[in-house]
């Protein structure tokens, strides 16, 4: 029912102003760390239609800001292209780049720190005009006055300093500055996140008015999904440098396709105290973008992760415990590296790596459903922590534990992956088309041999 999209050649959306193809932005390349860069944006493709607002959502550190900065060329792309009205702007340099920059501007998140406190508001808004030698200086001043009025500030604010303004007013200054050179495209990086709701509402109304008046195209980065839902036409959901799902906003919110979108939406508190939604609470935190999982980026936390055939019937609670065990071993591996600087202190502390039995105890012996709180309750101290576990599960775990005991945690992780892993752990999923309107989602579950994510959630979350 769903088909894999080959995006390398064909256009992603109709009438695209911006087209992003296989874009990668890595940090730390070339230097000492060249073999282990931070993969902030890792092979992303999508389009932004002329005049629309594309929302970009995801957790902090998932690469939203880097992606936004790369689109306006404040960051150099490592690979891939950003085509703007047909021109690949990652190829531009010198005067061509400077000229093009007028077309693409950015408004930053923090109205506190994004404005230079030593410049007056007038100077701040005028700066881009000066840099681009825009007309005569009298015309520039006039233009600034118009801009201040456009964003709802007053002429007399020209000679004031940013610190004399409230957060909402400072954000208006940032917007006026971004509009100075009449760009076509504006990246708004969390423009209302630092503002109170009543102020936020005014800025959102202003942004919509400006879009109508000047025909602007927006990339709107945010983590508040109710804001995104209100202002965006289409939405892209990012996780660990990847776009997990992208498509029509209403559709995506009402009927999410990707397991990560499902989880993200369910985590958001709704301003309705009578709501009785079931929540999917994800375990742990996103992995480091230096060391993303081999298969699907979401595989370490995905509640819908595909199980191998042999273990399809294990009960959900036990399966969750196995995942927790794997996560602990992965986490120890990460922690390990950052500990080299503490090697001295660790000398003599051989206990760190020999306590696999305590870990098994912690993971498999605490009563079910006690993840929040009952840790102080007594557990059966002695005895085999895997006693109540079927042998198909306990046997491979024992094998892995043996590897840990002999200091080979890498082998232990491998044993667990071979036994309990699936294609989610080993293969990067493709972008599957999931609706008539070209929405796509990155997940193996869209392949015909598996249950769709929504069918999975229907079954486990809402029945269990």
């Amino acid at each position, binding site marked *: 029912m769903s088909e894999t999209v080959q995006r390398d050649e064909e256009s992603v959306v109709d009438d695209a102003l911006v087209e992003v193809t296989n874009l990668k932005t890595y940090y730390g390349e070339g230097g000492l760390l060249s073999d282990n860069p931070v993969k902030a944006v890792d092979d992303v493709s999508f389009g932004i239609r002329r005049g629309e607002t594309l929302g970009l959502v995801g957790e902090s550190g998932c690469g939203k800001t880097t992606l936004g900065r790369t689109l306006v060329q404040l960051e150099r792309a490592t690979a891939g292209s950003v085509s703007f009205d047909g021109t690949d702007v990652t190829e531009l340099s010198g005067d061509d780049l400077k000229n093009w920059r007028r077309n693409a501007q950015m408004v930053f998140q923090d109205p506190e720190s994004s404005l230079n406190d030593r410049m007056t508001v007038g100077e701040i808004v005028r700066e881009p005009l000066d840099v681009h030698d825009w007309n005569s200086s009298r015309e520039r001043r006039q233009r600034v006055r118009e801009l201040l009025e456009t964003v709802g500030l007053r002429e007399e604010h020209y000679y004031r300093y940013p610190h004399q303004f409230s*957060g909402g007013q400072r954000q208006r200054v940032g917007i006026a500055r971004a509009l100075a050179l009449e760009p076509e495209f504006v990246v708004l990086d969390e423009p209302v996140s630092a503002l109170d709701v009543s102020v936020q509402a005014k800025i*959102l109304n202003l942004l919509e008015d400006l879009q109508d008046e000047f025909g602007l195209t927006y990339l709107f980065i945010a983590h508040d999904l109710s804001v995104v839902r209100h202002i965006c036409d289409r939405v892209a959901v990012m996780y660990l440098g990847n776009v997990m799902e992208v498509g029509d906003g209403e559709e995506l919110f009402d009927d999410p396709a990707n397991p990560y979108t499902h989880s993200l939406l369910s985590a958001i*508190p709704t301003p309705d*105290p009578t709501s009785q939604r079931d929540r999917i609470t994800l375990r742990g935190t996103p992995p480091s973008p230096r060391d993303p999982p081999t298969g699907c980026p979401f595989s370490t936390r995905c509640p819908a992760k595909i199980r191998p055939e042999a273990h399809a019937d294990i009960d959900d609670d036990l399966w969750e415990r196995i995942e927790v065990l794997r996560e602990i071993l992965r986490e120890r591996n990460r922690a390990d590296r950052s500990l080299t600087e503490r090697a001295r202190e660790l000398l003599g502390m051989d206990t760190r790596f020999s306590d696999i039995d305590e870990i098994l105890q912690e993971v498999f012996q605490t009563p079910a459903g006690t993840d929040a709180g009952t840790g102080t309750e007594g557990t059966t101290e002695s005895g085999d922590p895997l006693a109540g576990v079927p042998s198909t599960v306990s046997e491979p775990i024992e094998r892995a534990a043996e590897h840990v005991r002999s200091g080979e945690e890498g082998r232990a992780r491998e044993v667990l992956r071979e036994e309990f892993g699936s294609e989610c752990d080993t293969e990067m999923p493709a972008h599957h088309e999931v609706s008539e309107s070209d929405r796509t989602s990155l997940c193996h579950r869209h392949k015909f041999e598996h249950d769709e994510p929504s069918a999975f959630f229907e079954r486990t979350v809402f029945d269990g």
Partner: protein
Amino acid sequence: MSSRMLHRDRRRGGPILSVEDLRTAFFTDKETIRAVDGASFEVHKGETVGIVGESGSGKSVTARSIMGLIESPGEVLDGRIRFRDRGTLERFADSFSGKTVDVAGIDDDEHAATAGNDDFVFVEEWSGNDPSGGYVDVTRASPSALRKLRGNGIAMIFQDPLSSLNPVYTVGNQIKEALRLHQGLRGRAATEEAVNLLEAVSIPDAKRRITEYPHQFSGGMRQRAVIAMALACEPEVLICDEPTTALDVTIQAQILELLNGIQEERGLAIVFITHDMGVMAEVADRLNVMYAGEIVETAPIEELFANPKHPYTQGLLESIPGRHPDDDRLRTIEGDVPTPNEPATDCRFAPRCPEAFEECEAVHPVSVPVNEGTNDHTAACLLYPEDESREAAVETHRRRGSNSEVSIDE
């Protein structure tokens, strides 16, 4: 839902914490900021009381006043903050017997007059020679008593967990220090309890984690560690000032779930401060809305969202995206939040209020029931009680307002 019902039932025991007419001001070179200006609310055992309001409305200053953390140029000018916990009362009556006053049989209003200047432990009931009822008044407590109280009775977690963690000690050592101070645990016993606490806040591999430093923890994990430290003090009341604001939604969901679990298990009373109405709808049993230093509306959470009465609360709820999916434009409140510099002689919301009428600029509204049939929904607005005529309602506010002025100057 059922847990909310449960909370309702628990309220019968009377409040564990009551804040009455609290006034806290900051005296800066430029101006006097009346950050909290006559706030009153109650917290019962096992319930979560929310305080919501825009930036600068006085939420954090309220929290810091309860914790006895106001420092120069700030000062708690007036009001009572009564903490009614029997264990604390017994301990304090014992350690601070010279500052303890017997007010058994004395009218509530006369307590202050009965007490000596620096008395702060008030005993209302005795069972034999032991105090069995009464309270500690935080606003009168000495610095050493406050330190004791912060350890044992009331704990607080902040938006930035790093402000509560010391970067040069391991997380384990910091929790063990709290355990030593508050429960007298040392050595192996302390280490074991520290591991238990980290497990209680769902930090996996706790044994290894206690050997790590705060910078090796993610933001969500740090907040868990801070919660573990607060639990080490076995508090009765936990004050949470925007504990999830700096976190991502998925991590926020984890922390909210954790707090909920801890509350149910330990019967904690929680004061939860946030400006996020979504989070509030999820956690709070009762909600207080703050505006310019005052609490302008109080009600059970469902009631407040379904029937907001104060024009400010109405405006605030209206401006949340998604309340009116069919409207293109978001609804807004005109103007900006004022900074209160003078005692109020009018309604501080009047310049922005779509319902304002003449008296709003001449009479300071006090908290009144929104109508005759209710006593757990109050608003500080001249339109209420709504079943009284406008003149009568205004008169009520004028009279009650001038009474309270008198009692302040006494």
